[in-house]
């Protein structure tokens, strides 16, 4: 075992959140920064996201995923930041120790002043949605299929059915079609599209791929390989409607049924998680319940756009560097933020008083109801509305952002502690 190496900031995960965090931590502190990635390259999921749609917010341009990642990687590599690839983090401790291993260096025991968790999220699998039928080959999660098609160069099948109208599912429907496969149908259990509507237009409509709402997989057929899928429609209570079954002959079923933040090592270290987001509870500085451990990106909350993931990474990296420099970042002060009516989740879960700070004044929330008309979003302190803004609509597929205004921050500073509830009406 190597002797313990000391760092100012260790970032766990080399995807968009981790790269942005490492860059910002270095720029802010010029200290010893290490980024640890378990894959053989940086970029996280972006190298396999070869579609465009990245960078509209941060660069005012539209880039494909690999190119967006490349810009961050180039910057990261231009700095004196240590990079460990092919390295698995096994455990972290509240004392900011990191235990990791790789095949070249063996077991590593590292000590840091601050840690940024940026492990991203994982796909929900077949067993997590309890799909009935045989255990035939030819059933993939959308991200795995995306990796096969875009990185490894294999097509998973020729006649494909997709379950789930999330963005990755729709993007893969187009991708399979571009590579010459036939996508028979995209099925969605909900009565509404769960991904962005622009992806419905440019991935399904443009390529003539049908979308069936309130429909799911009733049975998977085939002994060794998927031979057919039986679909069934559901009513408003998601109960199957007998007699609505339909057989689709296909060789592949692709699942795009949700993402879950990856927090095995956070949990083990004692970082408190939010049961709604499945990610660490974070404050305005992106600090978790353990002082000096920060979190950013899809590990905290599954985002719609990578641009916001990078921004969250920057915020976490900046504050991790400040913490490493012994600047006071006090997570004991602050106002708890809770989701209320029509709000699924909200980040941060604790607002810090940051009136004189240019960072950490944003609120991100995800609606859990579909409201197709103008809505008002409010943060309420008892009966008092402290923060209020309007949106054209509320859709579970689209997050909402609000940058706190000076007046709102001043009022929050007076309130100091207590609890605010986020509501949409």
């Amino acid at each position, binding site marked *: 075992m190597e002797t313990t190496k000391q760092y100012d900031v260790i970032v766990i995960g080399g995807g968009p959140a981790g790269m942005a965090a490492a860059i910002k931590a270095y720029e802010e502190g010029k200290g010893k920064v290490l980024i640890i990635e378990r894959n053989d390259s940086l970029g996280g999921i972006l*190298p396999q996201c*070869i*579609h*465009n*749609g990245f960078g*509209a917010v941060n660069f005012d341009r*539209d*880039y*494909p*995923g*690999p*190119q967006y990642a*490349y810009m961050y990687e180039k910057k990261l590599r231009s700095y004196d930041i240590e990079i460990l690839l092919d390295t698995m983090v096994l455990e972290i401790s509240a004392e900011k120790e990191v235990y990791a291993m790789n095949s070249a260096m063996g077991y590593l025991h590292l000590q840091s002043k601050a840690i940024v968790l940026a492990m991203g999220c994982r796909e929900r699998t077949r067993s997590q949605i309890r799909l009935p039928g045989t255990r035939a080959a030819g059933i993939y999660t959308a991200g795995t299929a995306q990796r096969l*098609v*875009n*990185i*490894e*160069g294999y097509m998973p099948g020729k006649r494909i059915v997709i379950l789930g109208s999330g963005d990755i599912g729709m993007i893969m429907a187009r991708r399979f*079609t*571009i*590579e*010459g496969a036939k996508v028979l149908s995209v099925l969605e259990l909900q009565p509404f599209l769960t991904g*962005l*509507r*622009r992806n*419905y*237009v*440019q991935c399904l409509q*443009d*390529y003539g791929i049908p979308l069936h709402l309130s429909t799911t997989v009733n049975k998977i057929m085939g002994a060794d390989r998927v031979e057919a899928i039986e679909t069934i429609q559901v009513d408003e209570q998601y109960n199957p409607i007998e007699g609505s079954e339909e057989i689709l002959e296909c060789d592949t079923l692709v699942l795009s049924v949700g993402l879950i933040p990856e927090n095995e090592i956070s949990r083990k270290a004692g970082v408190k998680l939010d049961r709604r987001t499945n990610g660490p509870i974070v404050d305005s500085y992106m600090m978790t319940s353990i002082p000096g451990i920060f979190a950013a990106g899809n590990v905290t909350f599954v985002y*719609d*756009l990578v641009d916001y993931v990078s921004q969250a990474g920057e915020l976490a990296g900046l504050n991790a560097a400040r913490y490493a420099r012994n600047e006071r970042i006090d997570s004991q002060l602050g106002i708890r933020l809770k989701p209320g009516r029509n709000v699924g989740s909200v980040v941060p879960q604790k607002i810090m008083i940051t009136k004189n700070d240019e960072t950490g004044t944003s609120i991100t929330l995800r609606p859990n109801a579909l409201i197709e008309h103008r809505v008002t979003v409010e943060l309420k302190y008892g009966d008092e509305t402290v923060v209020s803004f309007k949106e*054209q609509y509320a859709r579970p597929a689209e997050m909402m952002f609000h940058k706190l205004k000076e007046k709102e921050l001043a009022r929050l500073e007076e309130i100091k502690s207590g609890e605010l509830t986020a509501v949409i009406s």
Partner: protein
Amino acid sequence: MSNIEQRTDICLRCPRGCEIHTVLNDKHEILKMEGNNCKLGPEYVKQEIEDPRRILPTSVRVRNGVRPLAPVWTPQAIPKAMLLELAAESRTIELDAPVHVGDIVLSNWKGLGIDLVASGEVASNT
């Protein structure tokens, strides 16, 4: 009053995806438009009526690279009707590693001013 056409578009210019309702006369002139939140909306609908275009993201084969594929795209949107034709053609292309971001893979395809450009890096395996 001559024929009036109504259409609904979901604007693709940004992730917001505004639903735009447009009323047109028989000369395809816009009489009324609502639902857009910025000036890109009318531009998008006009383009959709006259000449709908889309960006094509795909991949091409790579010889002697650390990976077998390189991601490519058309930075400029191409006519929607030609998407699958260019996709089919891109399946016949094979590059030699290394591939760099910005490398031109196909230049001025069919004389239409359409370029296919690499959007990722593939290092050589030698």
